[in-house]
């Protein structure tokens, strides 16, 4: 009986250890993201799986053209996948209006400009909401590509 208990405790400890290592990897290195919605067509479609890394957003190494995953500014429990169009200081023209992207913000737009709610709806997005940068499309396999601008 005692051996059974100690074996159980050992397994639990190993589970916790691997859980923590997994948490750190998914939170600070890279994770997988499943897309949904039409806003990034034709680059990405619903149910595409992306490999996204967390390192360049942390070190503020984003550039125009990167596809990023960020928390939705209007609903913190939802994530959005958009393309960085403007960096701080850039002048963005939408229709008749023109905006200057403020410090610490980025301008995000979906590739499917006709069907995307993005910075044109809710304005520039603070960099603090950006979670990761998509680098590879890994599913569907036939269409696997390196994502660059």
């Amino acid at each position: 009986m005692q051996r059974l208990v100690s074996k159980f405790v050992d397994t639990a400890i190993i589970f916790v250890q691997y859980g923590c290592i997994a948490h750190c990897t998914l939170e600070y290195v890279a994770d997988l993201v499943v897309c949904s919605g039409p806003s990034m067509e034709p680059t990405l479609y619903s149910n595409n799986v992306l490999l996204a890394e967390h390192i360049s957003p942390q070190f503020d190494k984003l550039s125009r053209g990167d596809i990023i995953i960020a928390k939705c500014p209007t609903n913190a429990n939802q994530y959005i996948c958009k393309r960085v169009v403007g960096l701080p200081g850039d002048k963005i023209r939408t229709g008749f209006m023109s905006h200057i992207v403020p410090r610490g913000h980025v301008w995000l737009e979906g590739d499917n400009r006709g069907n995307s709610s993005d910075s044109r709806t809710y304005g520039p997005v603070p960099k603090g909401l950006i979670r990761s940068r998509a680098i590879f499309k890994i599913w569907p396999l036939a269409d696997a590509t390196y994502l660059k601008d």
Partner: protein
Amino acid sequence: MKVPNFVKSIIVGVPIGITILDTIGYVARVDGISMQPALNPDRDVTDYVFLNRWAVRSHEVTRGDIISLKSPKDPDQRIIKRIVGLEGNISCIKSNRLCNHCLNLQGDIVATIGYKTAIVRVPEGHCWVEGDHTGHSMDSNNFGPVSIGLVTAKATCIVWPPSRWQNIKSYLPKKRKPLNLTSGYFS
């Protein structure tokens, strides 16, 4: 190849530590005078507060809470402020349904101090944060409503110095109450 034992324990220990700091919370020093008198009431004594990450894991905050958030102007900077105004009914937005109740309950209406408009209706998914030390605080009166996604933790207690040991109570100064909650606004 044999890995020394202490290296092995570091490899396992560091992720466990980071996970605990990430999910449960951590202790941080409060810099500056912006939250006087609630925090740092005495100029010479710096308070250390426990920032509870678990409390905001589903982005649920209430008016009067002291929270830490990423500065919208600089994502590497953390600021500590009090929540003054909220968006509409959060529980309904979470369940992704719109009922009549929340259609009536749009965001709070806040009377600003020195913002570009005199009153602001807090937009969806945002909150209005202010420091208690009016006029000496870089807050929503300067940069406008902030997205709730920027909130990183809730300050729940002061842990240092010992003379200041206490839980932080959720409290909203009467004169900073959102206009839609003060009696007589709609009459």
